[in-house]
């Protein structure tokens, strides 16, 4: 018997609770990526001499595998006396990795703001903080929401990497079930289907969001 329905239903609750860990990791990781990415992009504009340093840093992070970065954070922090549990280290690594990608998205958003907006803000004697908060960000962010959404989905699909440092997320749980019962077909396939379903749903959401934003910004 290749596919055993009874077994599949038996492991479903275990996988479902592990899926919550995956989703938690996704949300925390993305919150980190989105905010850190924004900080990087803003610092780059606000403090021009950091531009070169930040782009080298971004290039470094984007050119090396996330798995190695996860290992690095997980094993290196204890050397400095900071012991992070696997979940924290993993989510931190994912967040930093995607912050590099997100900062480029934000940068594209800022680059699309018309020069006149900056000049007008200066002419109106607005502070840098007010300019960003009230003039630039409200115009720059909506057009890039779909791009950020795509990275959210990409980040979600990277969470199985956390299984490499034994975080009990979906993949690790499926692997444990597999090694205990010698049945890999059901757990692995269910994990695959879960990711497929989540990706398709979020892709549809992003598409409709894109349509909504296009309509709102159309003038």
């Amino acid at each position: 018997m290749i596919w055993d329905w009874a077994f599949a239903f038996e492991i479903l609750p275990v996988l479902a609770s592990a899926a919550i860990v995956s989703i938690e990791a996704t949300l925390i990781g993305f919150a980190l990526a989105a905010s850190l990415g924004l900080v990087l992009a803003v610092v780059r504009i606000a403090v021009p001499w950091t531009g070169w340093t930040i782009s080298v840093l971004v290039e470094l992070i984007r050119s090396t595998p996330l798995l190695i970065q996860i290992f690095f954070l997980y094993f290196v922090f204890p050397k400095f006396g900071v012991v992070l549990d696997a979940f924290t280290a993993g989510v931190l690594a994912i967040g930093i990795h995607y912050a590099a990608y997100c900062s480029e998205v934000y940068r594209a958003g800022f680059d699309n703001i018309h020069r006149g907006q900056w000049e007008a803000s200066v002419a109106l004697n607005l502070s840098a903080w007010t300019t960003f908060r009230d003039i630039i960000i409200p115009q720059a962010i909506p057009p890039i929401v779909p791009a950020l959404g795509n990275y959210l989905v990409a980040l979600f699909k990277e969470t199985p990497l956390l299984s490499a440092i034994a975080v009990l997320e979906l993949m690790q749980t499926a692997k444990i079930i597999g090694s205990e019962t010698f049945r890999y077909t059901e757990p692995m396939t269910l994990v695959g289907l879960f990711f497929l379903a989540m990706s398709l749903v979020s892709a549809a959401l992003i598409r409709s969001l894109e349509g909504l934003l296009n309509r709102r910004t159309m003038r």
Partner: protein
Amino acid sequence: MGIRTLVAMLVVALVVIGALATQESYKVFMPGLLQGAVLTIEIAILGSLLAIVMGVLAALARMYGPAPLKWLATVYVEIFRGTSALVQLFWLFFVLPQFGVTLNAFLVAVLALGLNVGAYGSEVVRGAIQSVARGQWEASTALNMSRPQMLRRIILPQAFVAMIPPWGNLFIELLKSTALVSLITLSDLAFKAQQMNQNTFKTIPIFTLVLLMYLAMSLVVTIGMRLLERRASLGLARGKAA
């Protein structure tokens, strides 16, 4: 980032690797890591070739194929883009044998990564073909070209240039994804790093070297693709005619 900055980064990365490799505490790790790097490069190259083939086939099937083929290509693209690369790798490695198909780990690695990136690549190919100006299609029709002729002589050479930068990004993604194969027992660069780390606990030297090696490999791909792009767009007028 400009090509000069990239070359400068590559040179710096290689010099740093070289300088570290002469240090006593780093030297011992070099032979093992280089061995791992060779396997990483092999998987990356074979995976990329498979990805190109799958990307082009799936894109053409989705655009011009008969209905069943179109449907098949869509299912392929959605499945491989919708599930994560690690899940695909594990599925091929752990589940396929239960259906009586046992592939060795190397083959699984190339297949999983190639099919995964190929699915993303098919969208790149499709987008590039569709980005060729309408007038080009119309002119080809007016000249009474058949569809294969049109694609081969007019559309694809122009679409090719538009495809290079996104394919470059995909090759980098694939190169980085090769680190995942360490989780299915292949002793690539990432595997060697982890093994040495567990044996010696010299985390910082090992991972610094490994990160620099991956950086150097990625930079080689990026620079290569930039040069290819420059060469391919020679003599091609870009942008709209006046």
